[in-house]
């Protein structure tokens, strides 16, 4: 019985941890860590709509994330404001609206996640979504990096920066939506940011960086789910605590070995 809760929870945590870590490695390099974090908040009104109107909250969360990502992409192009500024304005509002309209009884689970609510169907969905997100991101990874080094350089090499940025934002939305049941909408952004930050302290090349980031994402997710299963505490905060422990360990390793990437 316990395994029926634990196995889908672990499968979801591992797959979402891998994909969030991988996609997050770009988010951190793009200096968009706050965007990754805040983007997860916007899922809350979508979850609320799903609960209120009795359809799958994942679909609600994904639809709202997808729409918001497209809107900020467009606003960034039109207004030339930074992503951070647009996100700061829009996503805090989304969080406020979500908290106001979601039924109080579901609020805690929506904000902080709950492995007991994860089914095998959720786990299979998360695995498929994560595989697609990793595969597609891998195709555009080097193009996104080139765009970060120099937009002019990338455009002169025939790369459509606007289009690959949109694809990337949509894949992040998909990954964040898949992680919400486990980690909760308030904390799922953590999985996009902290594993990548940990990996960056230990990497001198992109291959190592992206692999370590995915690995630390999976480790954070798995540890959080196992701890939640044994303690009965909410999963999201335990994923965060595990991830920060990995970050501190990495920082100590770097300090102790005088590793300089």
């Amino acid at each position, binding site marked *: 019985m316990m395994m029926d809760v634990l196995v889908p929870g672990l499968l979801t945590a591992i797959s979402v941890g891998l994909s969030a870590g991988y996609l997050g490695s770009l988010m951190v*390099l793009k200096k968009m860590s706050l965007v990754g974090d805040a983007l997860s908040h916007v899922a809350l009104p979508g979850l609320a709509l799903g609960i209120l109107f009795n359809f799958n909250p994942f679909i609600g969360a994904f639809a709202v994330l997808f729409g918001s990502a497209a809107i900020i992409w467009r606003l960034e192009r039109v207004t030339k404001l930074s992503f951070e500024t647009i996100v700061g304005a829009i996503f805090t509002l989304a969080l406020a609206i979500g908290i106001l309209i979601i039924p109080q009884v579901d609020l805690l689970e929506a904000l902080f996640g709950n492995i007991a609510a994860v089914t095998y169907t959720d786990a299979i969905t998360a695995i498929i979504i994560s595989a697609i997100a990793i595969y597609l991101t891998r195709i555009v990874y080097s193009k996104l990096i080139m765009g970060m*080094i120099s937009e*002019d350089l990338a455009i002169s090499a025939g790369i459509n920066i606007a289009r690959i940025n949109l694809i990337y934002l949509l894949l992040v939305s998909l990954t964040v939506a898949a992680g919400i049941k486990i980690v909760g909408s308030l904390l799922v952004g953590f999985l996009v940011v902290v594993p990548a930050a940990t990996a960056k302290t230990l990497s001198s090349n*992109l291959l190592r960086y992206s692999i370590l980031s995915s690995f630390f994402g999976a480790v954070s997710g798995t540890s959080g789910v196992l701890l939640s299963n044994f303690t009965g505490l909410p999963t999201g905060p335990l994923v965060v605590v595990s991830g920060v422990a990995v970050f501190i360990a990495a920082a100590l390793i770097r300090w102790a070995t005088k590793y300089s*990437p």
Partner: protein
Amino acid sequence: MESSDDCILTVSDLSVRIQNQLILDNINFKLKRGTTLAIVGPNGAGKSVLFKALLNLIPYMGKIEWYNKVKIGYVPQNLTAGDMPISVREFLSFKGCSGIKGCLDLVGLNNEAIMDKRLGTLSGGQFQRVLIAWAIIDGPNVLLFDEPTSAVDIDNEEAIYEMLNRLERDSEITVLIISHDIHLIRDYSEDMLALNRKVIFFGKSERIVEPEILKMIYGSEIVLGKHAKGS
């Protein structure tokens, strides 16, 4: 009279307007294949904008005509890898896996260890050479460099110009280069286009040391000192 075979680029009546401001006004010039053209002018003269127009990165009015299937390598200004964890090998492999070693040899970086170095940890001179390797890796016949030696010391500056000259000679590459260094322009380029929104002067680079030409370009009397490594 030049034949069209000698000519690789013709720019006619080129104007660029950015946010309602005229940055380039009615630019006209022709460039011969296999030469080095230095583009000079004060800050804000529109030199980098001219490059962006030549690369079709921005909208423009007028006509830019490249001849016979040119392939352009480009190194923009102020390019930085910062603290990004990316090795020299990974950066160069974005443009294709073959020919990396040969290109690094060509730019004077024939040390295998440099391939695994993080891009952000290279010295100014090494970084600039890697950028030049990046630009030539897929065999271009035209190179556009926007101030390639702005973050490089004098020794490396001259070495980089020498290398560009060698590339031009050995590979018959046409080079367009934005520079502020009058001595290097005189010593390492054949032609010079002086810009200040309009074309101020177009002719032989050796004339850049003439006081009246310098005054036309920079708008005040300029006295040339002796270059530390130059003649």
